[in-house]
């Protein structure tokens, strides 16, 4: 009796020790009514994985279409070929010159104060722009506006006004089009996110004459229909995303309108004396910047609290050369009320067209505009809180426009939600916390 019980006890212990909890798979990934076997992504720099002011290998690997493709692979998605750059410094464009990506590094300002800020990672390697053989599943092209996707001119060499990023990956530079290269791959599923640059080009040049102009809503709508009709002509299903409010991104929200800080009464008195004829007054502490405005008396005025200053404004000129105080800030660094209204009107028009085409073509609709507005107030995933604050907000990379890997994961999850909703698929989202944020030295 004694022995038997002891045996039983040992047997029980041995039996149960090996057993670990196993939660039943209550979510099995399925493709629903969609077919992800041949996925092609259509879009601009956001789709390409441009980040930190450049297109570079690691940024491309974290682009939301690649994250999506990895989830599609769980339910029959095929390989996803990316037009990788040759290195991790990559190529970006600043003032029509090639540059590398930015990294955080020490920056010493005109007053000798050193702090952490975006600096170039090195010297750009132009081999990054050499043509490479396709076809490519990620057809996101940095700089692409809606109509660019439809024209063979877009693939001409840079010297002839073409786009260097499409030139290198075009099936036939100067002859092929982006949508043509998409269709040639017989996609079963497409993602379309295009239109940001139709308004961002204007916004990022301060809406100045001689700069970029906004694509009219009528024209955009026509281009959008042409793009969607072409890429879905072969029966592809897909998802289309609307355009975020570009004025809410860090590029326009980092330099405050009242960033003119006066610390001595002498400065205040001098400025008050100088601006007395225009009736502009200054105080100790924060003051609105002085900006150029050809319609204002004397061609200048104080900036209003709802007007925006671009991230690209030379900070040293503000600190040491009187920019924004003695010298008005030129219009190319400012979005005034009218320009902001132009941007918002166009964005709303584009987004109306996108919703309509999604309905007519029976596509899944990813509401990126709403996602962006919740980002403005702060949004939390897996213990990480994201905002639109530059650098520390976590979602936007060092160019203040494009996404970090974590930001791409959030966007990918938004697309996955939209796809699951439309096609009754059960694609799992990705774990945002497992993606990197902005790298600190």
């Amino acid at each position: 009796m004694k022995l038997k019980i002891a045996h039983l006890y040992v047997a029980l212990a041995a039996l149960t020790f090996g057993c670990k909890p196993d939660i039943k798979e209550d979510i099995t990934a399925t493709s629903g009514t969609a077919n992800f076997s041949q996925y092609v992504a259509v879009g601009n720099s956001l789709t390409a994985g441009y980040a930190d002011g450049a297109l570079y290998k690691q940024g491309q690997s974290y682009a939301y279409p690649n994250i999506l493709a990895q989830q599609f692979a769980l339910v029959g998605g095929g390989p996803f070929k990316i037009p990788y750059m040759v290195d991790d410094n990559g190529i970006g464009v600043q003032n029509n010159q090639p540059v590398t990506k930015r990294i955080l590094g020490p920056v010493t300002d005109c007053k000798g104060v050193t702090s952490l800020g975006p600096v170039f990672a090195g010297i750009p390697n132009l081999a990054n722009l050499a043509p490479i053989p396709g076809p490519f599943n990620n057809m996101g092209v940095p700089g692409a506006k809606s109509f660019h996707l439809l024209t063979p001119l877009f693939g001409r060499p840079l010297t002839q006004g073409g786009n260097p990023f499409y030139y290198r990956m075009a099936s036939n530079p100067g002859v092929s089009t982006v949508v043509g290269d998409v269709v040639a791959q017989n996609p079963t599923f497409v993602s379309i996110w295009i239109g940001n640059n139709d308004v961002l080009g204007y916004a990022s040049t301060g809406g100045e004459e001689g700069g970029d102009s906004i694509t009219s809503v009528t024209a955009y709508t026509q281009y959008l229909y042409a793009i969607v009709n072409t890429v879905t002509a072969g029966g592809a299903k897909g998802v289309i995303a609307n355009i975020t409010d570009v004025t809410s991104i860090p590029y326009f929200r980092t330099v405050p309108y009242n960033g003119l800080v006066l610390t001595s009464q002498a400065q205040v008195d001098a400025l008050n004396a100088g601006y007395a004829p225009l009736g502009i007054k200054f105080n100790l502490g924060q003051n609105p910047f002085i900006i150029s405005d050809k319609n204002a008396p004397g061609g200048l005025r104080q900036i209003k609290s709802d007007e925006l200053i671009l991230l690209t404004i030379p900070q040293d000129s503000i600190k040491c050369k009187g920019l924004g105080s003695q010298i008005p800030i030129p219009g190319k660094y400012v979005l005034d009320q009218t320009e902001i209204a132009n941007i918002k009107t166009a964005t709303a028009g584009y987004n109306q067209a996108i919703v309509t085409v999604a309905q007519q073509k029976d596509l899944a609709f990813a509401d990126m505009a709403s996602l962006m507005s919740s980002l403005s107030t702060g949004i939390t995933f897996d213990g990480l809180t994201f905002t639109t604050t530059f650098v520390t907000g976590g979602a936007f990379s060092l160019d203040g426009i494009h996404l970090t890997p974590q930001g791409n994961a959030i966007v990918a999850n938004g697309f996955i939600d939209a796809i699951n909703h439309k096609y009754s698929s059960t694609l799992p989202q990705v774990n945002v916390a497992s993606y990197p944020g902005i790298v600190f030295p």
Partner: protein
Amino acid sequence: MKKLLFFMIFLSAAGLVRAGGYQVNLIGVRYVGMGHIGTGLTMDAGSIFFNPGALSLIKDKYSITGSVSGIFSYTQFRSANAGYTARTDNPLSTPFSVFASAKITDDLSAGIGVYTPFGSSIVWGDNWGGKYLIQDIKLKAVFFQPTVSYKIGDKLGIGAGLVFAYGKVDLHRAIPVTFADGSSGQANLKGHATNWGYNVGISFKPIEALTIGLNYRSKIKMDLKDGDANFTVPSSLSANFPAGNKFDATLPLPATFSGGISYNINEKFLIGAQVDYVRWSAYDSLIFDFKQNTSSLPDSRNPRKYDNTFIFRLGGQYKASDMLTIRLGGYYDETPVKKDYENPETPDGNRIGLSAGLSIYPIEKLSIDLSFLFVNQLKRDSQYLPANFKGAYKTYAYIPGIGLTYNF
């Protein structure tokens, strides 16, 4: 044997017991074998913990008992939206207890106990999906309790103990800054605290075969002062996370009311039941108050919002011979954690515990005690709302225990 079988079936069906949060109900393997009933028992010096009032009712003049358990626990997490699975890699944790008591006079007994009624040891790893909530935590409390007990007549015992509690915590959590290799920064918070509490009880034997006990163990607020807050961050951020930083935090060890009853059906059979009421609502939030705050390092406020809970326990023992006693028991332990505040730091759920045990007497008065407890923490779909972290948790724990008891 038939009787025994019936007894086992009865216990497996009704044998539901509960305990939750970071309370560790493994005080004495003789008690563990019976579903951790003890408030209504007068068995050995373990009454110092379970019911100081019962201590003076123990028949033997001296009682010494000590034991140690080994917790092998496995928790699985399955993300609700990202669909991945994570498992803990917990180290073996070894709660222990030692009690000794003596009758100073026929009516007055005194004793001392050292035991570990709270603790937690969870390792999720540095790179799992919930790393920004917790990577690993080690929490341990040791109680020292001198106790006196007085017998009023033959039927009533009252007793009280003064508790000195020592507690320590050591945890790691990822912080959202990224190194060049893509890994994240890390915070390590560790420190210790001490405080006082008490344990009072009353035990009543209306007839020889029946014991009724009531016990109250006070809340002890562990106020941790000047713990070490160390941060592993990229060097450019060292000013944002100052070296040698300190923190204060408070962790309450909740009060427990307990009522128990036991009955000797005959000379061989004893059966008992117990209800514990744990005042977990004391644990409302966990706040790490850093000595040096920066723009990157505000104080960390983590809502917990625990609820008070009941634990229902049932157990019994059978003296098979002079040399062998066998035990069975079980409990049902409600989770104190609200569904929207389930945090992987203390992954909790309603628990069913089933236990068995035995004592072997190689010589009279000395027993070698063994127990085995299996805890099934039921699958729970939940989330930690403040972090938007959703998923299901499930835990199994296998807990063997061994001890010695010498009553003379």
